[in-house]
């Protein structure tokens, strides 16, 4: 063929192209082997456990496995009227087995999540079941408590038959599946989670805004001052950045307490009366003030690193072309700082939305965030699947922001100090 060109060969007689590809592949493997230890370490100890959270949040096998015969018998039940003797007998069998294994307490906790009122009737049933006679379990169980004769409670049991459930996610949004299988919201006075989500967003948003408003002027000052002054002032930003979060929170607890220095100052200048000192801690104010100060360095540093690269001659050019300093600032300087603003705002927002320690210490009841609720379910109620579900809802929000961050700034461009 005419297009056939002579292949370039290496000294070993292998075509150059093949040889290069081979070398390239070797380099790729070498590079990957360097990353591999950390990558696999993180995948095992971190990425899989987050996947495990996903599994836990929808896993509902516990009840399914505790009442296998009952659910089998319930397959033929339409859920309209009380189930027949077959279901009751199967339930009795399962229940006796659970009592033998001392697991009926777990069942009552689980069923109580679905419908309130199971705890006491299961306790009563356990006591009564010792004296049960064989046959006609329907009558015997129903006579233990009137709720056992209520079809609602049997429907509640039936709802726990599937092995997987999205119910925890619904609960995180204050919704549930009602008796007819429709998704509805809980009554208005019991919507605690929606309030928390909104409050988390609200606090994270305003903390970001406050941080931006405070960081912009000082980042500008730091970037325009001569080196010897700016280095000194930079310490004011970096010292809090390196200081323990708990130390900084402690200092705000001292400052904001009712007999604290801020209140003393307000009384001193006559802003408030001595006997009418405002409560500045254990509420939203506390969360706002402390979180803004703690997150401020995370806004200053990206803004500073961008402003440092803007040549001062640009502003002079703007002014010499007839712009007032404000016009020159708004039309020339400000647009150039937008990458820094984006980086800083997203960083602060991501950090604020998952804040836990500071709101727990200075936020009181009205200043706590969704993270505090997750910790509460992890440590106090031990409803780990619900904690996982809420954690993943928070995580998906953060990932969206992270993705935006990556689009706008690029993760490789994160600068530290």
């Amino acid at each position, binding site marked *: 063929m005419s297009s056939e060109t002579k292949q370039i060969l290496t000294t070993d007689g292998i075509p150059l192209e093949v040889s290069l590809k081979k070398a*390239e592949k070797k380099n*790729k493997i*070498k*590079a*990957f082997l*360097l*990353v591999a*230890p*950390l*990558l696999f*370490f*993180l995948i095992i*100890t*971190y*990425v899989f*456990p*987050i996947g495990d*959270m996903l599994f836990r949040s929808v896993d509902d096998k516990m009840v399914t496995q505790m009442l296998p015969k009952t659910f089998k018998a319930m397959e033929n039940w339409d859920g309209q009227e009380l189930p027949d003797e077959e279901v009751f007998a199967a339930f009795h069998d399962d229940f006796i087995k659970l009592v033998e294994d001392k697991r009926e307490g777990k069942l009552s906790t689980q069923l109580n999540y679905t419908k309130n009122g199971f705890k006491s009737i299961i306790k009563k049933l356990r006591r009564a079941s010792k004296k049960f006679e064989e046959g006609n379990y329907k009558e015997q169980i129903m006579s233990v408590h009137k709720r056992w004769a209520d079809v609602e409670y049997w429907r509640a049991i039936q709802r726990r038959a599937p092995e997987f459930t999205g119910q925890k996610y619904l609960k995180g949004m204050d919704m549930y599946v009602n008796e007819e299988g429709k998704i509805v919201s809980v009554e208005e006075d019991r919507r605690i989670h929606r309030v928390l989500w909104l409050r988390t967003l609200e606090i994270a948003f305003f903390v970001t805004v406050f941080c931006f408003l*405070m960081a912009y002027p*000082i980042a500008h*000052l730091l970037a*325009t001052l001569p080196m010897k002054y700016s280095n000194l002032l930079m310490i*004011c*930003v*970096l*010292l*809090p950045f*390196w*200081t*323990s*979060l*708990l130390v*900084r929170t*402690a*200092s705000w607890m*001292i400052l904001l307490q009712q007999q*604290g*220095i801020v209140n003393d100052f307000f009384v001193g200048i006559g802003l408030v009366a001595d006997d009418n000192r405002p409560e500045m801690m254990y509420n939203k104010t506390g969360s706002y003030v402390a979180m803004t*100060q703690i997150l*401020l360095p995370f806004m200053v540093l990206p803004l500073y690193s961008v402003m440092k690269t803007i040549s001062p001659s640009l502003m002079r050019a703007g002014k010499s072309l007839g712009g007032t*300093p404000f016009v020159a600032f708004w039309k020339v300087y400000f647009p150039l700082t937008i990458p820094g603003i984006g980086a800083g705002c997203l960083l602060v927002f991501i950090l604020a939305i*998952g804040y836990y320690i500071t709101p*727990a210490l200075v936020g009181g009841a009205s200043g706590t965030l969704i*993270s505090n609720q997750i*910790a509460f379910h*992890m*440590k106090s109620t031990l409803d*780990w699947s619900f*904690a*996982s579900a809420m*954690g993943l809802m*928070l*995580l998906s929000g*953060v990932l969206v922001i*992270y993705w935006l961050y990556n689009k706008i700034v690029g*993760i*490789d461009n*994160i*600068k*530290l100090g």
Partner: protein
Amino acid sequence: MALPKYTEPHYRIWHYIYLTICAAVFFFLIAPLFVIFPLSFNAEEFLSFSDGMKRLDPDAFSLRWYKDMIYGTKNPWGLAAKNSFIIAIFATIGSVILGTVAALGLSSRHMPYKGLIMAVLISPMIVPLIISGVAIFFFMAKAGLAATHTGIVLAHIILGTPFVVITVTATLSGFDHSVTRAAASLGSDPVNTFMKITLPLILPGVISGGLFAFVTSFDEVVVVLFLAGLENTTIPIQMWTGLREQLSPTILAVATCLIILSTLILVTAELLRRRSERLRGINR
């Protein structure tokens, strides 16, 4: 920032307003830290300035809370400090080794799927700590490492490596790869090249990444709260319990020590940063 003489009066006023705002923000940033300092020398058991302190009466000041911190009966701080240092040191070593090696691979031109892998490696820094805490707790509980030092060290390695990866990759971005090729052409094997050529050049980045990892571990409280048992208590856990239950001046003494420690770390980090900037400046 002196203004030129021809500046019009209203811009002059604006400029002074701007400087005042800056001063106020700097005050807001730094002043809270300095409140702790004098109060930790309070002779009384209050967390506000006593009348004696306001008059600068020497009797109103004492080292009482520092003594309590060190010699106090049933005092948790000794054990906590020991644990904190042990955990932080091992976590730093682990993070630095894993992070530096990974950064070397990541900054190679040949690295496949760089963006995706970087995203995974950085993720512990971006994912809210509470979620990391829950996930790591599930893992450690399954692996039987909850309430052990090993478990906490591993958890802190997870949280610390992103900082090492970021600082070392940044240092390597200004790294002239022809020097390693030169070493190889002179017959040096890769390990020797790394130890003799690459490492000394990227050392500032490695150390400052290590400092980040150390501070991350030393200050970390959210994940430790899930993982630690009574034996593994750390300084942050003790501070957390103290701040929740009762705010005693002993905590302020501890806080003062921590501020001094962070000042030392800050100075080291700054010196390193300048050194590495100088080095990179020469390379360009």
